[in-house]
């Protein structure tokens, strides 16, 4: 038998319950994806395509109507194993308001750790460390409802950083952040992945964030339509745009210039590549002259 991946979804379908007898639409329609330990995966897709619904299957908040999902070999349909599964896969929800439970910020961040039975001294350390990582340490004694939108989002992320599960699923963790905050949060998430070996699954509408991941999964109307490296996915500029998505600014600029007939690499993904490509193009012209 082939070795199972860490998280495995096998042709899962899902529809939300219907109240009025109407047959509910399939929100997930025969999705198969698997995620290995230590992977760093982005999930893209238009509004309502089924991303959050899929993410909720990864830690057993939802179970498929058809097919099955397993985490470390345990089926998410096994109710007795719920606690185990949620300990392995932590989740940051799309709206941080739904996540915040305590009335003092540091208690909120400590909440999951207390439930896991982590010793108090260690809780203290991990909470302080997590709050510093998201630059909210100074606010530790405030109440979460005294925070701005972006600050709340950071607290929700700190909760997961402190918990250090094997895998984190982040549903649009940067939606309310300013660009600097977004970059810092992405840096923190990358560290979790690269230094602590935590598996990361991140849902985002920001293409430059997806470009930083190892792998990009594109969901479209409940189906996975692409599952590949960012370079391959963003190389298909036309297809991506057709599906209501976009490519990073640097990718778009180089693609546009290439279309005009200029000599540029196939798919430029980040700033440094773009600078190098444009420098070559522009200085090349000067040298000829």
């Amino acid at each position, binding site marked *: 038998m082939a070795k199972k991946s860490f998280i495995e979804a096998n042709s899962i379908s899902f529809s*939300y319950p219907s109240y009025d007898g109407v047959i509910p639409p399939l929100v997930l329609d025969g999705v198969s994806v698997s995620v290995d330990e230590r992977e760093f995966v982005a999930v893209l*897709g*238009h*509004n*309502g395509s089924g991303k*959050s619904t899929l993410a909720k299957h990864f830690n057993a908040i939802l179970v498929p109507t058809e097919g099955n999902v397993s985490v470390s070999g345990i089926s998410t349909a096994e109710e007795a194993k719920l606690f185990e599964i949620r300990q392995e896969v932590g989740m940051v929800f*799309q*709206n941080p*308001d739904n996540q915040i439970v305590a009335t003092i910020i540091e208690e909120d961040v400590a909440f999951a750790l207390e439930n896991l039975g982590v010793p108090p001294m260690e809780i203290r350390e991990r909470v302080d460390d997590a709050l510093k990582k998201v630059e909210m340490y100074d606010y530790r*004694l*405030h*109440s979460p409802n*005294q*925070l*701005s*939108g*972006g*600050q709340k989002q950071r607290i929700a992320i700190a909760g997961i950083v402190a918990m250090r599960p094997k895998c984190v699923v982040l549903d*649009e963790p940067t*939606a*309310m*952040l*300013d*660009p*600097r*905050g*977004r*970059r810092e949060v992405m840096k923190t998430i990358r560290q979790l992945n690269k230094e602590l070996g935590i598996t990361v699954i991140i849902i985002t*509408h920001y*293409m*430059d964030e997806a470009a930083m991941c190892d792998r990009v999964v594109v969901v479209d109307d409940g189906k996975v339509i692409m599952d590949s490296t960012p370079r391959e996915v963003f190389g298909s500029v036309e297809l991506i*745009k057709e599906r*209501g*998505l*976009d490519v*990073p*600014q*640097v990718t*778009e*600029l180089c693609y*546009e*210039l290439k279309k*005009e007939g*200029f000599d540029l690499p196939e798919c430029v993904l980040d*700033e440094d590549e*773009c*600078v190098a490509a*444009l*420098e070559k*193009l*522009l*200085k090349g*012209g*000067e040298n*000829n*002259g």
Partner: protein
Amino acid sequence: MAESIIKTEGLSYVYSAGTPYEHRAIDDINIDIEKGSFVGLIGHTGSGKSTLIQHLNGLIKPTAGKVYVGGEDIWENPKDIRKFRFKVGLVFQYPEHQLFEETVYKDIAFGPKNMGLSENDINRRVREAAKHTGLTEEYLEKSPFELSGGEKRRVAIAGVLAMQPEVLILDEPTAGLDPKGREFILSEIKTYHERTGATIILVSHSMEDVARFASHVLIMNHSKVAMYGETREVFKRVDELCEMGLEVPQISRVFAKLREKGIDVPESVLTVAEAKEAVLKLLEKGGEANA
């Protein structure tokens, strides 16, 4: 002189006054917004953007200072404050804070209903607003709580559009929208602006979007107004914006690096279209030199 639609004088607000968490979220704000302008409001997390805009339709009562809408002091008669809520429509940062009815239809209809419009008018406005936010007919009978994040956002925007406010304020309306949805909503806002002459205040973290749509830019920094002026003028001061911890778009950083390398690309490029044009121009020049 151009007519002023929103004006503040010495506007300040202190949260949790008298407690250890006391925080002056906005501090001595004096702005004067011209009728019919499209203002982009930018500032770091916690700079006071949401607090400021909630003053402009009387949702928050200032600790000190005044707010004028169309020349009227909105707190002169606190009983009349409702009038300004219809005139100045506000879309919240979190759509969840705005949705509470059983169906999407009722949610969008809430504002127009409170304005005392007829059933017919309400119906027309709800359908129009839904169309302008990309919500098809089938959404109208759904519960807003059974929608995806981006769908909720659209309903929240539709609810305020349906009031056809003279001043439309949107607090990060594109957060959580997919790229096509962002473009669509922004262009619908622009259309509303052009069609009705309404004044728009758009809170956004995207300098690119602000550069593309706004006539004016207001920069908040640590509870104070740091800059206010025409978009082009404000974005010329990109270096100062960076010093405030604000970040320019990816493409602007690329151009800054090219300049460091001695390539003569223009400063303050914020959009892909501008970038493309600038590169083509340089290449053309190079070409001419060759000829």
